[in-house]
């Protein structure tokens, strides 16, 4: 077991090197001169040349790459030209917002999606199954920005139930003392109920929008696996032995169904960390996705590069954790 985990961790290193090479190449190949953005519209050619020199853009590619890589290793991701701060500082400020949204939407997707899937597998082709299917297909078919705007229009604009899309807390509510940076958790830990209510209120709509969009693949997969498991021999044996239906479904069948779901949840987590760009934009959610889009619009190279790098690293790490969790759950894996 220990050996397997060690080997698996070793494999992460070449992946990460590959990822940095790709992010560097992407930024290098993208058209647009970052020095020009930084220098501004009044820049003279001399000013521009000085700026390029300062940013190291006049050096050969491999020197630039080495500067980049050694910077990344030191946590120096460069500077954002729109906020004027270190990219790392911007990221540190925004990651908790994205993480909170991601975890909340994952919770919604898993919490609603899996029970739905189980019910529709057990009552196959019932009305309930059809409703689940419609919800699932709807979640995939409707683009998240559309779902988001629709929910906002109805719940904020028409009914006034949801708060305005202006961030994570209502005006006048100050952020809870930072422990994890996740407002809901921090306010629970510090017993700050005002902040808890306000942050939950603001989190609900974006989390539902995002959760809805990833619920479908989860539901479809759990339903399919569940159906497969339900028709397998040992379930039939259990049924023949006269075990109660409840115990068969929730005890034996569900547990075996959930093994492949671990992988899927990992993939979904990675997708959500990087894929909530649009939802963050629609809800004015101050996370890294929002940061990436605004940087992209102003061709602020360093934040984009760092965003790609960050999302890739999250994927790599999630895969690592999933693989290890898998090995723990299924002894056959580590024997290979």
């Amino acid at each position, binding site marked *: 077991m220990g050996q397997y985990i060690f080997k698996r961790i070793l494999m992460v290193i070449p992946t990460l090197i590959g990822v940095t090479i790709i992010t560097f190449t992407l930024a290098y190949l993208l058209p647009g001169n970052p020095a020009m953005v930084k220098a501004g519209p009044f820049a003279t050619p001399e000013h521009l040349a000085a700026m390029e020199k300062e940013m190291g853009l006049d050096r050969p590619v491999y020197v630039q790459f080495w500067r980049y890589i050694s910077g990344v290793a030191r946590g120096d991701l460069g500077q954002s030209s729109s*906020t004027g701060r270190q990219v790392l500082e911007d990221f540190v400020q925004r990651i908790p917002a994205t993480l909170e949204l991601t975890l909340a939407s994952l919770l919604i997707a898993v919490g609603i999606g899996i029970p739905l899937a189980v019910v529709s597998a057990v009552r196959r082709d019932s009305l309930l199954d059809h409703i689940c299917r419609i919800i699932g297909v709807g979640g995939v078919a409707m683009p998240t920005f559309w779902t988001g705007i629709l929910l906002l229009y109805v719940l904020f604009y028409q009914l006034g139930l949801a708060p305005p899309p202006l961030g994570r807390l209502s005006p006048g509510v100050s952020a809870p003392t930072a422990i994890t940076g996740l407002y809901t958790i921090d306010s629970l830990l510090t017993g700050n109920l005002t902040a808890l209510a306000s942050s939950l209120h603001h989190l609900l709509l974006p989390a539902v929008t995002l959760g809805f969009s990833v619920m479908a693949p989860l539901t479809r997969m759990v339903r399919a696996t569940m159906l497969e498991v339900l028709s397998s021999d040992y379930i039939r044996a259990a049924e023949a032995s006269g075990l109660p239906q409840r115990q068969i479904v929730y005890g034996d069948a569900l547990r075996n169904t959930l093994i492949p779901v671990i992988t899927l949840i990992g993939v979904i987590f990675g997708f959500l960390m990087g894929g909530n760009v649009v939802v963050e934009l629609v809800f*004015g959610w101050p996370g890294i996705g929002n*940061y990436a889009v605004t940087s*992209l619009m102003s061709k602020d190279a360093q934040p984009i590069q760092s965003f790609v790098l960050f999302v890739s690293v999250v994927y790599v790490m999630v895969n690592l954790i999933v693989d290890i969790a898998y090995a723990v759950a299924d002894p056959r894996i580590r024997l290979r």
Partner: protein
Amino acid sequence: MKKMEESHQRLTSRREFLKIAGGVGLSFPLANLPFSRLRRANAAEPRTLTVAWDTEIDTLDPASFKTIGGYTTIANIYDTPIYWGVSPIPNKEGFFLSKPHDFVPRMAESWSKEKDGSVLVFKVRKGMKFPSGNPVTAHSFKYSFDRGLQSPGYMRIVIPSLLAIDSPDQFEVRDDYTFAIRLKSPTPMAMDIIALSNNAILDHLEVKKHATGEDPWATQWLKRNAVGGGPYNLIKNIPGVEIILEANNGFYQKPPFFERIVLKFVPNEADRVMLLKKKAIDMVAGRPGLSPRNVKSLEGEPGLKIFTVPDTTCHFVSMNQKKPPYDNVKVRQAINYAIPIEAIMPNVLFGYGRVMKTPVPDITPSYDPSANQFKFDLNKAKALLKEAGYEKGFTTTMAIRLGWAPHEMAATWMQREFENIGIRMNIVKETDATFRQSMSQGQHEISIDSWQSWVNDPFYHLQFNFNSKAAGTNVNFYSNPIVDKLIAENMHEPNLEKRNAASREIQKIIIEDAVWGFLWYDNWTRVMKSDIFGLEKRWDTFERYQTVYRKG
């Protein structure tokens, strides 16, 4: 309506709260219940103006900021020697607009001219203090101008070229409260340049504490730290969330109505529209903030009002004269005859703009459209193309900036009409940086660009756009020795009549040379709640919130 909405929200949050309290909250000691805290917060709530925009502060250094967020914040937390004056707009209660050559005292309480205007003397208002407690003196003035001239920002380019100053010795402290600027020769633009927010007066004693051998002008420190003295102080700047300004209690003028300004970062335009309609914010700012189409859709919306005034921003088709066929004047004229401007104005700008007749905006002194004969006439355009030797037309690519809706729409309108005279035009959208790079390297064939002169002066405008030596801003690579000569001779000409005549002559040449494809001048438009008054529009287009108030 407002009240109901508020109580509604409180109700929902209380419902939410009860739900949570029922679920997990029971383990908390009852003393932690937030009710008492809530009530206190409501009672002490300062008068707040909430604005939505989509821009950030790139730097707080007055000599080098570029973003709208940076400029607006600096214009509110710093003060300058003088301001552009504003006058009420007839029939628009509570709105004000600048007039050319109108200035009002700010940190300088008065000024005078010596030696035919080549020396400007400013009397510093006595008794003013920076937030640090340091007094504002002529030394602060000198330090700020010295710094502009010598620190790495772009003021070191603006000050020499537009104020004719190249040595810090030309900024002179006569006594603690008298500051003089010795120009090499008088220039009619001097006061306008001094009114720019880039010349914010800095607390030099404070800034000097942060100067280092490597960074003698404390550029790194001033990026993120403000040593104001303006009507507001910067309280909070969380990129991607909000910027909060609060009234500076030590300010020398009467305190502003709004004690707090909250500038919310709302990147999605549809959200900004919804927030306005729902009255969850007071105003949308930024540029453009709202596209003309959305402004149109908000016309007549109860509880909202639209403030729109002519602005100096020019939108034009830029034709690269280094690339054939645009080196041919007949082709450029043909393009001008093929632009369906009569269709673009209502369908793209919805009335929030004016047709451009000459490169100098219609609210700038010396504006003269008389030479412009262009109108939409495809036969004329075809004939001109034939004369130029392009009877069969040609294929070209038009570059536009990504996310600029009016440009995208205008490009599509032109594409359709150009097709009729044989010009097959592809449209490519580029991000701002790509666009600017390709443009400055002369890679664009034809593109849509825009220009706004912070200083409403014809020669400021002509210099940047049409002088062959203005690399980077003369986007057409236009080069005409006569125009260059006229600009050089009249840039600092003190005789305004002579100067304006020269500007009219240049306009005539540029129209004949069809340097731009003439499109439109923008309106400056803000949509806000009906109870907001006191908004002032200056040449630089960035609002100062000091005079804004709520009525009723």
